[in-house]
């Protein structure tokens, strides 16, 4: 049975069928028919205060749930405001469907009011995109968009819908199947390759697991844990993979790379076998590529064939969904363990001891002071309060690195950040999306004073929907990460990094109608965070942290990852 229906309504029906629960959006001229259909439709629409934040919120939602996040914007400026968000989703492989309005089909190309070539502009920042010129194609396209966004290596898909397509009336019959002949979703991985991988793992004396965002996307945490426990392999998780193994697991070392721990980076340098799972050998992890893991053979498991061999050529490539590959691999390992596990057991034990020694020599320990609040102190308090259970959405910069170093996540999908693109202003809107996804969870937005000022408008969204997000501003009065680089690599010529004129947070929060507070004494930190968490609604906590603190260890850009700067350079005494 089919009945006459508007394009806008049809679009909503397709979203319902795809299991979408809410749309983060901002209306405008050409999406008026869509919003008219939304008026009495059960689909929930969340009105944000800027389209970029709609896209970020959809990503917060997607990361927290594993479902496809949905955002929408009008044509022209609405669509162009989505771009940063789309690139962000592309870089971090986050499943998002973005719906944009377009001027009526007969006006396309005429420089009409609020017209932009959204289809052309978003070609390079989407996994795929569509311009729907016929209403008859709309349902098919929406289902394709969700399928492409959520399968394989996830990513953003944009659907551009002209006004007259929203308004058109047609008979709607639900689409039962889609056919994308050229879109291949690799599945379980080649059996022979998996067997060879098991062989290489048993042969290794100093194996190391290097796990990333792919573990989170494919839901392979349990399988990963099984692997590291089965063979007792030390593991590092990338910035995107934090939580893939519980942060307090005995085999988990830390994040590797530019701000990774000494043990993680020394481990990767000395290992003889890297088991790379859902990672892309990003430059922030490898440092100088030619010196990365010089003694290691590499097994690289990834669902995206174009990632394999892109930066590091593996001895053993396996194309497949990492969860299904690990299921197979674990089975083979369990089966061969009685015969094989003994061979290198001694060497592997020595390797684990070596890593433990590195961890003891240079532990990742938060700096705490009696006199001033150290930013590391703030994140370790958040860690203590949340007990690994809270969602932490971070912005970009020093506070992001400290959060990644010191907050231990007990499960995946709790740590939400902008990794690949590093787009400031991500933290607060992502926290909003995550809180919608998980109303039961405690959600922190950990932001710097720079990124916070990029997302201040979203405080209204918090109030609007009564979202109890705890916004913790690590306020050092600087664009800290930029300043850190200027100090270390540009002879301390700090330029355009001082953020004066920060608002009075108590008044700012009060202006929006909720509670805010500024603290600057270490003794106040724990009680203030407690107060924020106990508050029923949103809370804005401005923490005045030590303005000169820098993130260590640090691998200078272009260095090998074992060439870490472990602590701030000592000041050179001036001769009298």
């Amino acid at each position, binding site marked *: 049975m089919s009945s006459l229906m508007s394009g806008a309504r049809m679009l909503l*029906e397709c979203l*319902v*069928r*795809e*299991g979408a629960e809410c749309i983060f959006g901002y209306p405008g001229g050409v999406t008026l028919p869509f*919003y008219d259909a*939304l*008026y*009495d*439709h*059960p*689909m*929930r*629409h969340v009105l944000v205060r800027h389209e970029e934040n709609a896209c970020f919120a959809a990503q917060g939602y997607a990361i927290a749930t594993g479902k496809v996040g949905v955002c929408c914007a009008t044509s022209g400026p609405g669509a162009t405001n989505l771009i940063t968000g789309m690139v962000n989703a592309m870089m971090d492989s986050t499943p998002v469907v973005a719906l944009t309005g377009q001027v009526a089909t007969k006006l396309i190309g005429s420089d009409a009011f609020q017209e932009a070539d959204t*289809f*052309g502009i978003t*070609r*390079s920042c989407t*996994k*795929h*995109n569509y*311009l729907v010129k016929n209403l008859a194609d709309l349902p098919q396209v929406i*289902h394709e968009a*969700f*399928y*492409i966004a959520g399968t394989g290596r996830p990513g953003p898909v944009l659907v551009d819908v002209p006004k007259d397509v929203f308004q058109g009336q047609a008979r709607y019959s*639900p*689409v*039962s*199947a*889609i*056919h*994308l*002949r*050229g*879109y*291949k*979703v690799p599945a379980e991985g080649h059996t022979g390759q998996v067997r060879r991988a098991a062989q290489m793992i048993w042969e290794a004396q100093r194996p190391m697991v290097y796990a990333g965002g792919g573990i989170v996307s494919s839901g392979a945490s349990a399988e990963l844990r099984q692997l590291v426990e089965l063979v007792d392999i030390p593991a590092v998780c990338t910035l995107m993979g934090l939580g893939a193994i519980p942060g307090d697991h005995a085999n988990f070392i830390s994040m590797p790379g530019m701000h990774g721990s000494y043990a993680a980076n020394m481990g990767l340098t000395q290992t003889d076998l890297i088991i790379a799972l859902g990672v892309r050998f990003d430059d922030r992890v490898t440092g100088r590529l030619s010196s990365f893991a010089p003694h290691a053979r590499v097994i690289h498991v990834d669902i*995206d*064939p*174009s990632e394999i*061999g*892109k930066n590091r050529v593996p001895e053993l490539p396996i194309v497949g969904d990492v969860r299904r590959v690990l299921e197979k691999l674990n089975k083979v390992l369990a089966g061969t363990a009685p015969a094989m596990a003994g061979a290198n057991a001694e060497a592997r034990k020595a390797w684990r001891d070596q890593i433990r020694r590195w961890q003891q020599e240079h532990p990742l320990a938060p700096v705490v002071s009696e006199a001033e609040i150290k930013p590391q102190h703030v994140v370790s308090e958040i860690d203590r309060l949340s007990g690994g259970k809270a969602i932490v959405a971070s912005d970009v910069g020093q506070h992001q690195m400290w959060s990644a170093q010191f907050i231990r996540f007990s499960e995946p999908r709790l740590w939400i950040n902008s990794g690949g693109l590093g787009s400031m202003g991500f933290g607060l809107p992502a926290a909003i999306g995550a809180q919608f996804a998980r109303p039961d969870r405690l959600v922190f937005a950990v932001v710097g004073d720079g990124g916070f000022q990029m997302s201040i408008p979203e405080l209204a969204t918090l109030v609007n929907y009564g979202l109890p997000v705890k916004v913790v501003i690590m306020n050092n009065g600087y664009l800290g990460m930029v300043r850190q680089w200027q100090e270390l690599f540009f002879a301390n010529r700090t330029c355009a990094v001082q953020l004066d004129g920060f608002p009075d947070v108590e008044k700012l929060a009060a202006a929006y109608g909720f509670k805010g507070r500024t603290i600057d004494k270490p003794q106040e930190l724990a009680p203030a965070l407690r107060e924020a968490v106990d508050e029923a609604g949103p809370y804005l906590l401005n923490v005045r942290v030590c303005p000169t603190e820098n993130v260590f260890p640090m691998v200078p850009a272009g260095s090998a990852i074992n060439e870490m700067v472990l602590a701030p350079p000592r000041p050179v005494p001036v001769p009298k």
Partner: protein
Amino acid sequence: MIQVISLLVENKPGALMRITGVLTARGYNIESLTVARTLDPELSHMTIAVDVDPALRGLVIKQMIKLINVLQASDLTDSRAVVREMVLMRVKAPADKRTAILKEAEIFGARVIDSSVEGFALEATGDPEKLDEFVDIMRSYGEFEATRSGVVAMSLEGKKPRLSAPVPTRGGAEKLETNTGVING
């Protein structure tokens, strides 16, 4: 080094832009590009000649295969393949040179498609290098104009594209709620 890429793509808007985007995003200059429909009108065959860093040739192919509209992409540079190009040219031919020009055209297997008092219009197909030589020779006769098609290539090793099967959409049976009142108003 010039890489010859052969692609089988869905005839969809934006497909060409996506494919060239893989190359232009890296700042590669496309030497030539030809597209035409296949027997199946929903598909097109594309041949791209492009100057790619040899180390990245494989990656470029993989990134093209990844595109939703691409059914098959192969690097024909070092494989068994025929590569052909067509050139159309106008040569000014005064009476004393006409015989010589026709002789040269014959050597290269070119056809005369127009003849006038001023000169000839010629058409030749062949190996791109052979055509280079032909163009050089014809240019030596004086006033000259040519347009080339860019290369079309075909692998001599038949490889069937592996295509994906249809997949069912989600929630086919889900009941849609109606008349639930104002939700977002």
